[in-house]
């Protein structure tokens, strides 16, 4: 009975958000993902972008794409619209779509595996523009030279997701 009441309260709270409130929440989430990216930029492939994209896609579902594309634009404006930026237009979208497809998953360990796998394949996904521009040899050279960083990315994504999933999922869910 209590659970039913709780669910109703959550449901009412979700319905009570105005479009303006939703925009503010999405804007704050975008600011958070952008600021932490800059703050952690000095560390080799240790970042919270993957974790936050998974979290946002799990909570906000397709609305998370607004965050992803505004974030990509901000990155381009801050660092310059170089070739790597093209990959930002699809890598985070792929991660968000994978998350939405697996949204029924509850285990933090499975989310950590998804995040770690994404980190491992990050360089592979980013090699696609080099494949188009310079052919297979350039794409393979880019991919191979980045494998040590992909391995770091995998381990750090796995560990950060495992550590942060429960507390931050709880907090972010309340934003709905």
């Amino acid at each position, binding site marked *: 009975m209590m659970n039913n009441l709780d669910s109703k309260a959550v449901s009412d709270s979700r319905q009570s958000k105005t479009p303006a409130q939703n925009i503010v929440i999405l804007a704050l989430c975008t600011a958070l993902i952008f600021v932490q990216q800059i703050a952690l930029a*000095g*560390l*080799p492939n240790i970042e919270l972008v993957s974790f936050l994209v998974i979290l946002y896609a799990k909570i906000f579902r397709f609305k998370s794409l607004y965050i992803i594309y505004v974030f990509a634009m901000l990155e381009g404006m801050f*660092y*310059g*619209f*170089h070739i790597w930026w093209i990959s930002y237009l699809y890598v985070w979208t792929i991660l968000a779509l994978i998350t939405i497809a697996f949204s029924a998953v509850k*285990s933090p*360990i*499975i989310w950590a*595996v998804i995040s*770690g*796998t994404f980190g*491992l394949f990050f360089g592979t996904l980013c090699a696609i523009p*080099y494949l188009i521009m310079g052919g297979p040899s*350039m794409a*393979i*050279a*880019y991919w*191979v*030279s980045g*494998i*040590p*960083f*992909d*391995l770091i990315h*995998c381990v750090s994504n*796995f560990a950060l997701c495992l550590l942060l999933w429960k507390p931050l999922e709880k907090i972010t869910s309340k934003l709905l």
Partner: protein
Amino acid sequence: MKKTNKSNTKTIVIAVTALILLVAVFFTAYQLLRQRGAEGAKTIHVDVTVGDETIKTVDINTDAEYLRQALEEENLIEGEEGAYGLWVVTVAGRTADSGKEEWWSLYKNGEFSMTGVDDTPLEDGDSFEYRLTVGYDE
């Protein structure tokens, strides 16, 4: 309930094992495919370009297997150690001004190098160019 828990545990074990296997595949691919420098004596050619002007051109005889060692033996480069290796700031006495978005791009045998100075392997007859580039979106 017990059956569900057992099934969840099985899924987690399979997922973690699959990730570990993928890591092993990537590690093996790196060991097999990464470029290694040639052993023994070799001669490489290095040009340093600022705008349209070549400010330094030099042939280097070296036993180094990677570019950084060869250039440091000639005192051609200086830079800052970073997470990705040496970030080259000064080449042949010319320092890139980050305030003007200047940076040194590296070309190997006429092609933009996909590796930094630490990881660029050397072979006899290789030709390198350090080109002062302006703008981080170049």
